[in-house]
């Protein structure tokens, strides 16, 4: 049922205005029906009041006629002496009754019942005439004639009048009943009409509201659906084209021209903009990912380069360190060779030389192995590590370069340190960097001492690398961890060692701190969180 007010092309405001208008009309119609019924009821009621009054008058009249008849009978049959007195009174009374009756009849015209009045009036006149005749005969002592008139005319006439009045009386009663019935019928009809009106108003309002609600809810559902599609797929970061199209498809179902239709159009535009923006963003993201990969690659290469650079730093010491066992091996081998050449070979001596050779080969192998592990490229593993062990391992290679720089090393390692979760090769790289820097700082120093100590500070395992070098100014300290910052001569340092060390320690969740005083030396503190025992 297409209702004009539920058209898709009018605004929501108007959609709601029209049913309200219709509802008002319904109320007016119901009010009019009510007032019509009330008027009709009041008229019927007035009629009933009139009829009741007429009925009462008729009753009174009946009583009075009966009284007069009774008086006449008494007048006719009483003794002379008494009769005289009565006649006077009765004649006066009768006259008064008749006057009364006429007065009543005239006054009310027997109300609206002219026919009744016209019909009854001649009979009453005649009855009055007969009464006057009878009274006249009695007064002239013509009693016989009076009796004769009374019996043959008066009684007949009076009976006729009484019968008539009686009928009229019943007629009025019947009329009243019929009016009552009418009123009840009207009431029923009115109730039915009222009910029909209510039902009609309800049905029309219900249908229009349902249609309006549908027109409001359907587009809102589509909007919600479209928004859901975007929210659901937006986080997936997948191909954007498809789900934006799905979303716009969902909105195509909204074809109304009202406020929601306009909102849907704006929504479509918005999705199109987001689609463009997202496409661009994903391209940028893609490029960022590629760049990030390159950056991670470069970072790995940088770490490796820095490590190789630090191997370069210690290579001279390494050569010297390797030459020590090699020297001993060569000497022992020559010695053994000579011993074997003797006429009487002392096996014990030869074996002792060979054992020394084996021992020195192990010593050289240990250095080489350490270097191999240290320079290994790629991913390193984190493990629960004893910090003191890392420090001692580091000095396998570092001790020699300190010796070559005439630096006295003092190791003060605290016992019972908790373990730390670390990649020990990276920590060794940091220590190597700190120690070689300390060595360079003490190049021109008179007091060539390096103190390395480990200790527990709160929840952190710390290692101090403390030199007696030239120290640094505050300005220098502020820049010490900056990439490419170096105080060394061109070609000597990359300027990356400290920043890389800083990065390594940060990745371990630790801190690399420095305190320095010009002319007094510097102290670098490497601090790593201890492993929590659960």
């Amino acid at each position, binding site marked *: 049922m297409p209702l004009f007010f539920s058209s898709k092309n009018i605004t929501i405001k108007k959609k709601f205005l029209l049913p309200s208008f219709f509802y008002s009309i319904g109320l007016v119609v119901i009010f009019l029906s009510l007032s019509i019924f009330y008027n009709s009821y009041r008229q019927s009621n007035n009629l009933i009041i009139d009829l009741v009054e007429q009925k009462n008058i008729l009753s009174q009249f009946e009583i009075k006629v009966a009284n007069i008849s009774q008086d006449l009978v008494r007048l006719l049959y009483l003794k002379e002496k008494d009769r005289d007195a009565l006649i006077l009174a009765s004649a006066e009374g009768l006259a008064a009754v008749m006057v009364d009756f006429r007065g009543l009849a005239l006054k009310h015209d027997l109300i609206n019942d002219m026919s009744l009045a016209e019909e009854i009036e001649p009979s009453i006149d005649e009855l009055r005439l007969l009464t006057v005749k009878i009274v006249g005969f009695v007064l002239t002592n013509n009693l016989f004639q009076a009796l004769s008139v009374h019996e043959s005319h008066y009684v007949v006439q009076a009976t006729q009048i009484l019968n008539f009045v009686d009928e009229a009386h019943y007629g009025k009663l019947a009329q009243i009943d019929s009016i009552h019935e009418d009123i009840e019928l009207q009431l029923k009809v009115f109730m039915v009409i009222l009910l029909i009106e209510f039902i009609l108003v309800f049905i029309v309002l219900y249908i229009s509201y349902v249609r309006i609600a549908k027109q409001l809810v359907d587009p809102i559902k589509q909007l919600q659906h479209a928004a859901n599609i975007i929210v659901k797929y937006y986080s997936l970061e997948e191909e954007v084209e498809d789900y934006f199209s799905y979303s716009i498809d969902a909105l195509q179902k909204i074809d109304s021209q009202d406020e929601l239709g306009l909102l849907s159009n704006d929504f479509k535009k918005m999705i199109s903009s987001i689609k463009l923006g997202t496409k661009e963003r994903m391209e940028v993201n893609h490029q960022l990912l590629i760049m990030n990969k390159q950056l991670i690659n470069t970072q790995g290469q940088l770490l490796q380069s820095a490590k190789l650079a630090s191997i370069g730093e210690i290579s*001279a010491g390494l*050569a*010297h360190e390797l*030459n*020590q*066992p*090699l*020297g*001993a*091996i*060569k*000497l*022992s081998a*020559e*010695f053994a060779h*000579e011993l074997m050449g003797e006429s009487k070979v002392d096996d014990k001596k030869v074996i002792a030389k060979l054992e*020394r050779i084996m*021992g*020195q080969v192990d*010593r050289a192998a240990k250095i080489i192995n350490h270097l191999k592990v240290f320079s290994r490229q790629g991913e390193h593993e984190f493990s629960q590590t004893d910090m003191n062990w890392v420090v001692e391992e580091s000095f396998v290679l570092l001790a020699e370069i*300190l*010796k*070559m*720089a*005439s*630096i*006295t090393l003092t190791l003060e390692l605290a016992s019972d340190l908790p373990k730390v979760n670390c990649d020990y090769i990276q920590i060794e790289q940091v220590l190597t960097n700190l120690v070689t820097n300390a060595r360079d700082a003490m190049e021109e120093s008179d007091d060539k001492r390096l103190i390395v100590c480990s200790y527990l500070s709160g929840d952190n395992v710390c290692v101090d690398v403390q030199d007696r070098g030239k120290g640094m100014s505050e300005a220098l300290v502020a820049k010490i961890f900056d990439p490419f910052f170096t105080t060394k001569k061109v070609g000597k340092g990359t300027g990356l060692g400290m920043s890389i060390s800083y990065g390594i320690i940060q990745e371990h969740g630790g801190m690399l701190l420095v305190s320095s005083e010009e002319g007094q030396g510097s102290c670098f503190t490497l601090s790593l969180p201890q492993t929590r025992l659960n």
Partner: protein
Amino acid sequence: MSKILLVDDDEVFNESLREYLEYKGFTVLSAFNGKQGLDMITTDSPDLVITDIVMPEFEGIELLTAVVIDSVKAKPKIIVISGGGRIGSSNYLSVAKEMGADAVFEKPLEFKLLVEEIKRLLA
């Protein structure tokens, strides 16, 4: 009998060389750092000193300087051995030679040549 003082902080090398030279018939004393070596030069008056260059605290060049320039009266013959220096071993050895070392050797060395050189210097 000639007395030789060995100054080398590497205990194994020091020990090996001492045994070898003793086998060759020399009396050998061992010192493990420059300071100890210098003290023993004064107290034990060795005929020949064989010293390493790179040592903690008091290194070979310092020992050499002390022996050559400072007031050590009976100057012993000095042979300098090095396993490599800060920049390059040969560099250090040439410095040592300029400073008055009688002979220089680079590790790993031919010990027969060393013995010959000792014999030549002590002859």
